[in-house]
């Protein structure tokens, strides 16, 4: 594929050197001029470095140690490095040194360019502006490194987990003897010399015999109690042991963790490569560490032709992945065709000439993905890795086998080609025949074209003539048009005049015909006038009558008003005496009210004073009465006692009272008087002296009474005075009213007089009018007024018309004469016009005809016949060439066919050497390379494949971020495929979470705990999938693996995704028919739960010295189920439902390793199941696999409530367990335990839902397979 590469421009810059830099260069050349003249220009990688001292930028130049030929030779491929400060006058080199050839020159933070250095001091080159701005755009490398360093430190925890068990030193132990297992795959040593704490650590380490260079294999198990280690033997050693050729030279075993350590080293190197900017995609650090992964938006959606049959989701994923700029994420639930998508992407990449890396965490997944890639010439697959760890499916792609694979492919294609050899001759003859016919046709076409060309030449001549004609016609048309226009104007002018005259005459005649003659018209006017006068009189009469009525009424009113006034006035005059007669204030008030006299302020004030004093005068009459009685009594006593004596007593009392006197109540005085009276009456013999006392007492009281009474009397007089004053005031008020009333009188009289005069006048007027009107008027006034109005208007009009008739009548003849003349003139004008129009039309018709002719000619002229001819001639040439080529092919055919046969033969007999050559070619051009994440960082691989156009990582959720980083570093574009609803990374037999929790529980280091807890929260894949924009991710939602009924068990795990899981099988019952009819399984069963009872032996058990669990009851059920399946398969074969030799693939899986071991034993040692293809394993190890039938042994079952179900709690593990089966899924476990007794609520809910699904398909059975 041709790639457009911009020709690198050479940047020429001035270079100034400090002494220090010069010194560095002097070690390699005689001076700097000589050094920088080694080459015309240098390929350098410029890094922008921090410069703290100035505002100037600083850079470091790395001289490419491969592309600069002369320099590379001089420096022996070491890397020259020059530190510079960027100045306007050029680069100022501050230091120059040469580093090891291992120092990378290219990083994604450096700018690669060609530079030419001017070292002569006198030059004026300066620094190119382009270089200056390029440097400014570069990130400061240290800052980026620090950023990565800071963020990546959060991943340290992953390495810690792996390092946990990795001791640094090798361990050497002695062994006494060893034994090989039944199939020579494992060896067990009895060893000595291992410390207590080391037993755990040696698992997974590699072992070899001291002094031998061959590694035996890795430690599978270590039993500290038995002092034994079990080692998985490498195939090579297995072979040796079988031949009895393996005999240890020493009795010492060395355990070494170099594999683990080198793995950790590679992971760490990944960290530092990212930090140093060695990622193929400079954006990788931002994708990994920004909260919202920063990606470049796809520029456009690519359009593709697919090689595989894809569903909408898969198509979307492929298009998206190919359109994406740097990252694309695909979520693939079980059976949704992830591998098909990966295959398609690889194929599309291959077509585009791109190299793809397919990486995964496990070898199995890599092999799985590669094996399903379509056999296609475009794709050259290479499997990279240690041969012994590669699965059967991947083996054909390893380097030593690719040539065989290629040969097989090529032979296959070649044989297909050879099979159709004979047809090729006929095919070629047919093609030649066709082409010759085509040629004939073309030649005929050419003849026609030539005729046409002659025609065209004639047309060219004609064209000129017609054009001239048209021109002439146009010329003559001008004056005619002008004439026509003038005539038109004249005619229309005359017509307008004529119409006006005609109208006038018509109007006049109409008028005359209406009234006959002028006299008659005059008569009518007169009549109208009389009528109007009469009506006017009538109106006047009626109006006057109305006025009279009004006047009479007014007069009457005036008289009444005067009468009323007079009466009131007189009454008021009379009332003056009445005021004097008022004895009481109430009388006065009544008077004022009667005569409508308003109380003025003065009266109001007097009235108020009166009321106030009156209120104070309470008890006046009582005091007056008591005073009289007292004076009576005193008089009587004075009479009795005599004047002188009385006078003496009085004087005595007067003196006493001067010093103050007592106060008394009226009642007390009364009672004193009564007392005295009673005394007089009751004392028969009265002494005068006795009376003195009484008199004194009475005098005393009289003093007080006089005092009181005097006060009251004063007030009484004040009241009286006020009353008089009020009366006076009222009187003056009355006289004022009378005065004003008198003035009113004359006014009233005047009004009366005026109205009476008016009445007289009107009466006279009416009398006069009534004479004129004579008859009695029946109509109402408004009607008459209305009539009058109409008549007046008519009269007016008639008068105008009459005047008009009078004036026009004499002129009528003259007008009629003018009209006649006009008519004639118009007629003439119109005739002239018509003549001109005919002439114009004639010319136009002629013109149009000519134009049409011209157009026809134009069309003929427009045809690009010359080009058509040229084209036809070229086509003819082309066809002739093809014919020639076909003849050539025909001639070559037997030769080529012979060559192909020869090639076929040679290929069949290819020797080692041949294949080796092909292998080299193949490896050179391999474009899909598969390896595990960690192996992608092996040095050998790094050297051969430093970068890839596209890196696809499968089963992403199963890898830890540091593992993922390794392949990611290599990809310009990265495509992640995974499913976070399936199992996370595994460490040993535990998931990452389980391991992390265990470490956290053990650890006391708070900081470490926090760090690890952070890891628990973050799943890189999940975070990316959730945070990426839609354009950069896709979920595959159609699964093709499971029968729809089986799929229903896992559908809930995907409920919260954008798309729900759908079944892509068109007819599950048909394409996932297992054809089995047995005791446990019926033909239409696809999902069965064999419920284990809650009693021994169906309870879980634990090995004495192991953590893992097993369940003997379930084992027994599985035994019967397997036998049943085997027999049912045999029957299906016998009945012809399954083809002969069919082996049903059956996977027996369990949450627990110990149970798997027991199942293995059962299958290998106790059962002979010829019709089944069996595979066993833990659920975790089965991820990614699929089988026709899956039996899940659930193991957990205890009788106490709140029992733990351990591994089975994780929904992701359950998801994997349920989604392995294509046709039939059989669960073996206690329904009660999982749906009722399990400790965790969520787990109970999860399994209860599963139970519902099973029940809805009538799949619940007891341990013997009877329906429940």
């Amino acid at each position: 594929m041709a790639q457009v590469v911009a020709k690198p421009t050479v940047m020429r810059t001035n270079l100034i050197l400090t002494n220090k830099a010069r010194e560095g260069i002097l070690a390699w050349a005689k001076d700097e001029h000589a050094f920088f003249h080694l080459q015309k220009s240098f390929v350098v990688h410029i890094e922008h470095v921090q410069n703290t001292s100035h505002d100037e930028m600083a850079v470091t130049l790395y001289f490419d140690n491969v592309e600069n030929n002369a320099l590379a030779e001089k420096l022996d491929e070491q890397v020259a490095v020059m530190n510079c400060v960027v100045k306007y006058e050029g680069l100022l080199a501050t230091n120059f040194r040469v580093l090891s050839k291992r120092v990378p020159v290219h990083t994604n933070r450096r700018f690669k360019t060609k530079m030419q250095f001017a070292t002569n001091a006198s030059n004026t080159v300066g620094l190119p502006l382009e270089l200056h701005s390029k440097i400014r755009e570069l990130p400061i490398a240290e800052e980026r490194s620090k950023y990565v360093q800071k963020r990546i430190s959060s991943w340290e925890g992953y390495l810690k987990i792996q390092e946990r068990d990795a001791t640094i030193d090798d361990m050497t132990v002695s062994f006494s003897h060893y034994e090989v297992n039944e199939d020579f795959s494992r060896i067990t040593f009895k060893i000595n010399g291992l410390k207590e704490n080391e037993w755990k650590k040696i698992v997974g380490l590699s072992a070899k015999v001291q002094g031998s260079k061959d590694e035996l294999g890795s430690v599978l198990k270590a039993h500290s109690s038995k002092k034994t280690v079990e080692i998985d033997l490498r195939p090579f050693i297995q072979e040796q042991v079988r031949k009895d050729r393996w005999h240890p030279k020493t009795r010492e075993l060395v355990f070494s963790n170099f594999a683990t350590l080198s793995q950790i080293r590679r992971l760490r190197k990944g960290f530092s490569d990212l930090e140093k900017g060695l990622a193929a995609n400079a954006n990788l650090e931002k994708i990994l560490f920004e909260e919202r992964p920063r990606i470049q938006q796809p520029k456009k959606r690519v359009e593709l032709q697919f090689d595989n049959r894809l569903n909408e989701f898969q198509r979307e994923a492929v298009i998206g992945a190919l359109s994406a700029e740097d990252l694309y994420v695909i979520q693939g639930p079980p059976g949704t065709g992830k591998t098909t998508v990966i295959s398609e992407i690889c194929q599309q990449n291959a077509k585009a000439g791109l190299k793809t890396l397919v990486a995964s965490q496990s070898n199995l997944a890599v092999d799985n993905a590669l094996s399903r890639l379509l056999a296609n010439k475009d794709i050259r697959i290479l499997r990279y890795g240690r041969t012994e760890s590669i699965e059967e499916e991947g083996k054909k792609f390893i380097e030593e086998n690719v040539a065989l694979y290629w040969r097989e492919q090529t032979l296959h294609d070649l044989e297909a080609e050879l099979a159709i050899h004979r047809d090729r001759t006929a095919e070629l003859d047919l093609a030649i025949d066709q082409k010759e016919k085509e040629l004939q046709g073309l030649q005929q076409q050419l003849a026609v074209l030539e005729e046409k060309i002659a025609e065209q030449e004639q047309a060219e001549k004609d064209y000129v003539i017609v054009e001239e004609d048209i021109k002439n016609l146009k010329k003559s048309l001008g004056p005619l048009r002008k004439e026509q226009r003038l005539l038109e104007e004249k005619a229309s002018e005359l017509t307008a005049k004529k119409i006006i005259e005609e109208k006038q005459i018509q109007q006049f005649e109409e008028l005359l015909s209406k009234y006959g003659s002028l006299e008659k018209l005059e008569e009518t006017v007169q009549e109208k006038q009389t009528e109007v006068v009469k009506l006017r009189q009538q109106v006047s009469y009626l109006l006057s009558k109305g006025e009279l009525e009004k006047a009479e009424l007014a007069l009457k009113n005036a008289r009444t008003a005067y009468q009323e006034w007079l009466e009131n006035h007189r009454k008021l005059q009379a009332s003056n005496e009445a005021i004097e007669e008022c004895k009481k204030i109430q009388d006065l008030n009544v008077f004022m009210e009667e005569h409508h006299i308003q109380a003025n302020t003065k009266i109001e004030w007097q009235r108020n004073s009166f009321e106030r004093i009156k209120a104070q005068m309470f008890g006046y009459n009582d005091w007056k009465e008591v005073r009289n009685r007292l004076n009576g009594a005193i008089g009587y006593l004075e009479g009795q006692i005599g004047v002188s004596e009385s006078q003496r007593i009085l004087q005595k009392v007067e003196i006493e009272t001067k010093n103050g006197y007592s106060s008394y109540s009226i009642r007390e005085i009364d009672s004193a008087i009564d007392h005295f009276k009673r005394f007089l009456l009751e004392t028969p013999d009265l002494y005068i002296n006795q009376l003195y006392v009484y008199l004194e007492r009475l005098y005393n009281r009289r003093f007080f009474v006089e005092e009181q009474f005097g006060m009251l009397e004063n007030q009484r007089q004040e009241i009286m005075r006020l009353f008089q004053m009020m009366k006076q005031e009222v009187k003056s008020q009355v006289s004022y009213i009378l005065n004003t009333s008198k003035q009113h009188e004359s006014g009233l009289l005047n009004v009366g007089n005026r109205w009476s005069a008016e009445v007289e006048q009107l009466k006279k007027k009416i009398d006069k009018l009534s004479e004129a009107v004579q008859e009695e008027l029946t109509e109402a006034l408004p009607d008459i007024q209305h009539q009058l109005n109409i008549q007046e208007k008519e009269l007016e009009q008639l008068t105008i018309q009459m005047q008009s008739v009078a004036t026009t009548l004499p002129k009528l003849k003259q007008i009629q004469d003018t009209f006649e003349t006009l008519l004639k003139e118009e007629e003439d004008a119109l005739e002239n016009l018509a003549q001109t129009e005919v002439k114009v039309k004639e010319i136009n018709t002629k013109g149009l005809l000519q134009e049409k002719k011209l157009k026809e000619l134009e069309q003929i002229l427009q045809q690009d016949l010359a080009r058509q001819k040229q084209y036809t001639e070229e086509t003819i040439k082309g066809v002739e060439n093809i014919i020639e080529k076909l003849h050539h092919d025909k001639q070559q055919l037997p030769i080529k066919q012979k060559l192909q046969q020869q090639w076929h033969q040679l290929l069949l007999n290819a020797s080692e050497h041949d294949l080796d050559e092909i292998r080299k070619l193949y490896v050179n051009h391999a474009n899909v390379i598969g390896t595990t994440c960690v192996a992608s960082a092996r040095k050998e691989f790094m050297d051969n494949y430093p970068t890839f156009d596209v890196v696809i990582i499968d089963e992403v959720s199963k890898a830890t971020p540091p593992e993922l980083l390794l392949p990611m570093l290599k990809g310009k574009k990265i495509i992640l495929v995974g499913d976070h609803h399936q199992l996370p990374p595994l460490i040993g037999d535990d998931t990452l979470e389980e391991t992390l929790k265990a470490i956290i529980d053990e650890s006391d280091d708070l900081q470490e705990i926090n760090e690890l807890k952070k890891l628990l929260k973050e799943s890189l894949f999940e975070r990316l999938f959730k945070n990426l924009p839609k354009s950069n991710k896709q979920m595959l939602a159609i699964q093709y693996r499971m029968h729809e009924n089986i799929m229903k068990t896992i559908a809930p795990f995907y409920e919260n995704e954008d798309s729900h899981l759908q079944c892509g099988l068109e007819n599950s019952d048909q394409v996932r028919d297992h054809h089995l009819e047995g005791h446990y399984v019926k033909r239409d069963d696809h999902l069965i739960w064999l419920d284990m009872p809650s009693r021994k032996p169906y309870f879980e058990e634990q090995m004495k010295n192991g953590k893992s669990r097993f369940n003997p009851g379930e084992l027994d059920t599985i035994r019967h189920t397997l036998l049943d399946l085997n027999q049912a398969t045999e029957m299906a074969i016998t009945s012809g439902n399954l083809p002969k030799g069919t082996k049903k693939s059956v996977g027996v899986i369990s949450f627990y390793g110990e149970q798997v071991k027991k199942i293995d034993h059962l299958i290998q040692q106790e059962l002979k199941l010829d019709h089944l293809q069996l595979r066993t394993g833990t659920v975790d190890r089965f991820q990614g696999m699929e089988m026709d039938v899956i039996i899940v042994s659930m193991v957990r079952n205890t009788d106490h409530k709140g029992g733990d179900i351990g591994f089975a709690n994780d929904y992701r593990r359950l998801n994997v367990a349920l989604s392995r089966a294509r046709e039939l899924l059989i669960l073996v476990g206690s329904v009660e335990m999982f749906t009722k007794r399990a400790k965790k609520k969520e787990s109970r809910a999860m399994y209860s839902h599963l139970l519902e699904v099973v029940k809805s398909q009538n799949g619940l059975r007891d341990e013997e397979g009877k329906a429940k």
Partner: protein
Amino acid sequence: MNALENKLTKKIKQDPKANILATFSWCFPIQTIEFKYKPVKRLTMDILMKMVLLSCKQAEIAEPKELSDLLLVEELFIRDLLQNLQNKGLVEKEAYFRLTARGEKQLENGIFEEEQEEETQELLYSANHKDFLTGNMEDLDDLDELPEPFPYASEEPMDVEDEVIFNALQENRPALKNEEKDQDAVQTFITSITSNKIIQINDVPCVQFILYNKEKDLLYTRVWNTLTGHWDETLEKLLTEKELLKWREDYLEQIK
């Protein structure tokens, strides 16, 4: 035979967990087949290069694509090879690719096969293994008496691909040592067989142990092949598949 049996028993007993339930001896048949062939000598030249040269010589090839279509080989490979051949001055391009004089010569050396004297070789074929076995039949002559034949003995005719035969013959050729194997050198190849015939059928004695590992409740078998001198995986698998369940019944008493 007894000596061998004793030796093997001793070896097995090194493993204290391996309980020998039974020991048998029997023979499986081995066919000695005599192959007659004429090896050829020619210049080492890989077939793809040879085909490219041949095609350029015989056919009129204008574009690498044509050659790719002809040989059904990736165009990339062809371009690589043609470039390589042009660089070496073996091929040049005018209207069509053509061989230079040097190219002609090279091709001739590569194709020209100097037919050698007919050679004869005997190979040992076991129908039970469907493969040739290597071993010294003469060693078996030392055995005093031969045991019973193997119950699953197969004497079916040879059923392997030619290539397997060529490889086996090539590996066993005594002359191989004399002919050096370096690049561009002339080599001897076996590319066809003139004839093959079974010249005799011998019996290869084997010693079979039926073993039991009590700790793991494991029943298994070991078969010592006296011809090849190793524990024979093929025969062990065959026996396990056929008889494992039977052993469990037969040795029920001993297992318990």
